[in-house]
């Protein structure tokens, strides 16, 4: 390929990814409100657009026109950079996810490692936000977020390891190809459950939403942020839910493999079903306590993940 061609490809992929991230996050906020409304026997947003579809768009525009408050006691540079760094991984992750055979912004040969490495940049943004706000709620929320996220990272990586073991490649399209015709969830149900729990914990959602527990911490690490800066944290969180579900689809549910329908449709179908399940969890379960959260990870999930890895290694070696 020539240089202009590559640059054109880059710009095109970039535009599509950023647009998708923004629209998808707005759609997911709407979906979350609708799902919660259905579960609580309400109507949810109805006024703006057909069945309230444009409500979140209106909200985003409203946030764009809000005053940007920078409290006097904050660390200005970190406060300015924090929402940008927290949002940064969202499009970078979406860019690395292939949605069908050969379709996607990129298909890296170390895709799996790339995804988990980039996802952790968001916690840097959260820690910066909490620290720079110079607010007790923010700092406590950020500390909890980071402790929780680094803890749940380990069982999550161990759960994915069993999948990589079976696929024999870190390339996402190879992992999906290895799941034809039987998806890995059949062989690795425990790894799937561990990954789902850790994924929900990593995206700071109920029952693991201690970092932003609104009944005790106001809004956690983004208490001091207003307008578009707040919106960036919000969009990042919803993109994280999408990425979580997309990773589950790729690693456990067979990606774009499926009968009759085209591949990309299968991919999105599975992903949005997973997103719905994650939302369902949020509106069904109460919040954990801080000690329960930590003990559950280190004493239950991590030993279980290690055991699962050992057993699946031996079984796989034995010819399964």
């Amino acid at each position, binding site marked *: 390929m020539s240089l202009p061609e590559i640059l054109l490809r880059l710009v095109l992929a970039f535009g599509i990814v950023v647009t998708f991230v923004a629209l998808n996050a707005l759609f997911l906020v709407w979906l979350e409100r609708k799902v919660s409304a259905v579960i609580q026997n309400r109507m949810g947003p109805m006024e703006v657009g057909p069945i309230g579809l444009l409500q979140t768009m209106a909200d985003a525009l409203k946030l*764009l*026109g809000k005053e940007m408050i920078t409290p*006097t006691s904050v660390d200005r540079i970190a406060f300015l950079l924090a929402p*940008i760094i927290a949002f940064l991984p969202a499009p970078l992750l979406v860019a690395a996810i292939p949605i069908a055979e050969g379709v996607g912004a990129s298909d890296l040969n170390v895709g799996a490692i790339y995804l988990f490495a980039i996802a952790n940049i968001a916690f840097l943004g959260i820690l910066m936000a909490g*620290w720079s706000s110079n607010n007790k709620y923010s700092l406590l929320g950020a500390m909890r977020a980071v402790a929780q996220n680094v803890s749940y990272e380990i069982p999550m990586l161990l759960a994915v390891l069993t999948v990589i073991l079976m696929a024999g490649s870190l390339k996402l399209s190879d992992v999906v190809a290895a799941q034809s015709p039987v998806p890995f969830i059949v062989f690795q149900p425990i790894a799937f459950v561990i990954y789902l729990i850790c994924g929900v914990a990593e995206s700071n959602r109920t029952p693991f939403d201690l970092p932003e527990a609104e009944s005790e911490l106001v809004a956690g690490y983004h208490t001091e942020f207003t307008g578009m800066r707040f919106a960036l944290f919000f969009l990042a969180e919803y993109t994280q839910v999408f990425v979580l579900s997309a990773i589950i689809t790729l690693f456990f549910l067979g990606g774009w493999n499926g009968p009759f329908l085209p591949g990309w449709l299968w991919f999105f179908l599975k992903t949005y079903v997973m997103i719905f399940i994650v939302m369902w969890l949020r509106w069904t379960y109460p919040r954990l306590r801080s000690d329960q959260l930590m003990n559950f990870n280190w004493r239950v999930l991590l030993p279980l993940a290690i055991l699962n890895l050992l057993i699946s290694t031996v079984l796989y*070696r034995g010819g399964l």
Partner: protein
Amino acid sequence: MPDVLHNNSLIVFLILTAGVAAVVGLFVALTIFLGPKKPNEIKDAPFESGFVSKTDATQPFPIKYYLVAILFVVFDIEVAFLYPWAVSFREIGAIGLTSMVVFIAILAVGLYYAVKKRVLEWK
């Protein structure tokens, strides 16, 4: 030059990072431009549920968070070592399997020690 761009994902990654940061920065700048600016003393104070904040927020913090961070570094690096092993699992045979079982066993003993030492007792 084209080859470098095409094959080196680090460069593509850096370009994407810069692009995203630029777009997001533009949005943040847009709110500064569009939003009203009416600062006052109470609005610009740290939010504390209506109380006037008396102390700085940057105070000593429970050591437990630090211990979790140390444990994370240890375990995360060990998991990072496991990834290349998982990819080459088929080629390295029985030696690879046994050495990794020993490695994971040491990991498990370390976790057991940490639990017994009550490092992870959160209250």
